[in-house]
């Protein structure tokens, strides 16, 4: 079984490489056929060269680090507040009914519209970006916390009650492990959303970060730099997503002793 899993893993990896190669080839082809100037559509070679110079002068890593900080802080803050609120709302249906319309309504305000306000209020630095990330992360984590806690089987709750477990014990030994699959599902969505939040914030107003780099590239007709920044963002989002998937493998081993590499569903 193990062997066939490894086999499957290798297979998936090969397939991904192949897809990437085909995409690069198609990109190069489009550039050659259309003969667009590099400031509109640079070819893979130019972007690669730009990546190397951005790495060499340290600018890419510097801006990447700024964005990563915003993403991680925002994710942490949003997750913390949303899971605490979710825990409370899951326990008090009356408050949930009362607050649910406002929470849902707040979601209909696009983050792009809020970002300028937050930048005006909290400045162009780390704080405003962290808040934007936290806001965008908040909703999926909140919903998943509530769903996760409500999915805890009533019989197991009764069992803990009959054993006179304290509230803290029930949280630690029952609610947390039982809700963890759904919680991590929320975190998976949150991690990628947080990257979006950071970039939106940086595009609105910042003097550093990958979003800023995109603005600079656009302003200077350095389209290759825009590509480099976009790829860096994709890599970051993928890495974060991968980390959550790893955490799932580690903590939800009981669910998936025979899991394959199901990246999207995460469960088998």
């Amino acid at each position, binding site marked *: 079984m193990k062997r066939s899993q490894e086999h499957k893993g290798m297979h998936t990896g090969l397939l991904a490489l192949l897809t990437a190669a085909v995409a690069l080839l198609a990109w190069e082809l489009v550039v050659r056929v259309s003969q667009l100037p590099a400031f509109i559509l640079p070819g893979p070679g130019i972007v690669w060269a730009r990546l190397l110079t951005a790495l060499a002068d340290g600018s890419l890593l510097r801006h990447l680090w700024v964005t990563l900080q915003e993403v991680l802080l925002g994710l942490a803050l949003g997750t913390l507040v949303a899971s605490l609120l979710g825990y409370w709302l899951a326990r008090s249906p009356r408050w949930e009914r009362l607050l649910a319309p406002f929470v849902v309504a707040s979601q209909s305000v696009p983050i792009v519209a809020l970002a300028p306000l937050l930048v005006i209020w909290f400045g162009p630095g780390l704080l405003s970006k962290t808040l934007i990330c936290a806001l965008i992360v908040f909703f999926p984590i909140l919903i998943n916390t509530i769903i996760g806690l409500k999915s805890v*089987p009533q*019989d*197991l709750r*009764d*069992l803990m*009650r*009959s*054993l*006179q*477990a304290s509230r803290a*014990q029930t949280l630690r*030994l*029952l609610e947390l*492990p*039982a809700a963890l699959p759904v919680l991590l599902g929320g975190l998976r969505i949150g991690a990628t959303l947080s990257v979006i939040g950071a970039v939106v914030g940086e595009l609105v107003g910042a003097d550093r970060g990958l979003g800023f780099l995109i603005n600079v590239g656009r302003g200077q007709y350095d389209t290759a730099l825009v590509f480099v920044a976009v790829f860096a963002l994709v890599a970051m989002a993928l890495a974060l997503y991968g980390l959550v998937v790893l955490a799932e493998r580690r903590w*939800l081993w*009981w*669910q998936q*002793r025979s899991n394959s590499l199901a990246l999207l569903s995460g469960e088998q």
Partner: protein
Amino acid sequence: MSAATTAPFLSVEKLSASFADRTGQLSVLRNLSFSVPRGQFVCVLGPSGAGKSTLLRLLAGLLPTNAGRILFAGEPVRGPQAGVGLVFQDANLMPWRSALDNVALPLELRNNPDAIDRAWDMLQLVGLQGFELALPSELSGGMAQRVAIGRALVQDPQLLLLDEPFGSLDALTREKMGEELLRIWELEHKTVVMVTHDINEALYLADRVLVLGKRPASIKLDMPVKLARPRTPQLRYSPAFGRMAARLRAAIE
């Protein structure tokens, strides 16, 4: 076993229970009274929906009583309490815990340092040696229910409450589990109240069978089972067994 000396071990006095539902008050139990001496094995029989599980949950302190009261060792039951082991209809195990850790849970909640050792011994007692580290998903229905019984017994309860514990098992496994339960009971001699809808199971296991009527249920029949112990599987085919089974069947319908 010695009968109760002065006060009965468990007594139910004029117990009524009703729940609010959409159509109004739904009366489930009405004016139920019985008492159980220490060490007795009582089975509660009744048609489905008669409120057997409600009775068990009341005894466990998981539901509040509306009228009447329940005395456990002389004290009124006001909520879940120590000294009561509960086995649910489905094994109701935590899927992320091994068999061993599931059995250890009640002791772990009381910060008992010997939790794992005692859980280990308990798993041997319920016949699961070799499956200590198996996850519930890797156990058969019968094995999972053994873990659940071990979990209920590990804290050495005075009273064991079983809610149709073998209801989801196939007939053969079910008989086997009944025999297992008797074997364990002969060793530990707890007071047992077990809800079931299986007449043969009730007769085979119990010292006494209570039959609940239709809703709102009260006790329709309180029948002692005077069959010698230890009981053997062949007992099921004896004439006395058949006569009692017929009596119970008549009472249920």
